[in-house]
């Protein structure tokens, strides 16, 4: 599991590559929280374009970050999920609170 971060304006984009499951969920959560808190960003975009696999542990990460960012008045968005990840997100109803965009660029525009 590999994370890269890029800040655009008030938005931090976290790009995830690899497989997101319970095994690496804690490290992913801590790394995102650490980078978000030190970035002074307001909004958070999850770029899932290179995420090869995710199970419900990933849903926990998305929902948890949504709660944190929302509590501070920011917005979250999901970009470029695979078909499988999109099905999981929709099954849990997460798309109703975190909007899905086709690209990271659109997501950044959406939360701005």
């Amino acid at each position, binding site marked *: 599991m590999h994370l890269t971060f890029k800040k655009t304006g008030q938005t931090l984009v976290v790009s995830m590559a690899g497989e997101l499951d319970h095994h690496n969920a804690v490290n992913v959560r801590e790394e995102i929280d650490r980078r978000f808190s030190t970035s002074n960003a307001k909004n958070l975009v999850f770029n899932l374009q290179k995420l090869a696999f995710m199970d*419900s542990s990933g849903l926990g990460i998305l929902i948890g970050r949504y709660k944190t960012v929302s509590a501070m008045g920011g917005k979250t968005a999901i970009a470029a999920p695979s078909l499988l990840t999109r099905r999981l997100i929709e*099954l849990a109803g997460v798309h109703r609170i975190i909007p899905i965009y086709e690209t990271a660029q659109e997501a950044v525009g959406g939360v701005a």
Partner: protein
Amino acid sequence: MNNRVKIDFLSVSENEGFARIAAAAFVSQLNPTLEELDDIKTAVSEAVTNAIIHGYENRGGTVTLLMEIEEKCVKIQVIDKGRGIDDIKKAMQPLYTSKPDLERSGMGFTVMESFMDSLEVSSETGKGTKVLMTKRIM
């Protein structure tokens, strides 16, 4: 029965990825679509994660992955000898989690149910849990 594989592995989170790959490799002999493979990998990942987190509560133990193929149907069992589930009906409710502090989404059983054709969960407190899932490869 056309084929059968039984794998016992240690209840550590490193083996979640191993279990997914093992299931995908076993099922590949039925020439599944990529979507069918993803469904099975996800369901196995959920069941194995449950065994590790809830069954053994990260204390270690053995998880058994028993997979069988009969014609075009794959039958997968994930078995642990952990603490068991006190209330299966409650545990299977969407969004219910006994460990909210771990940021679990409570969607594990719902995912298994949605991505496979059938799901049966049997459990006895103090004895362990068996998850049985089937899927017909079209």
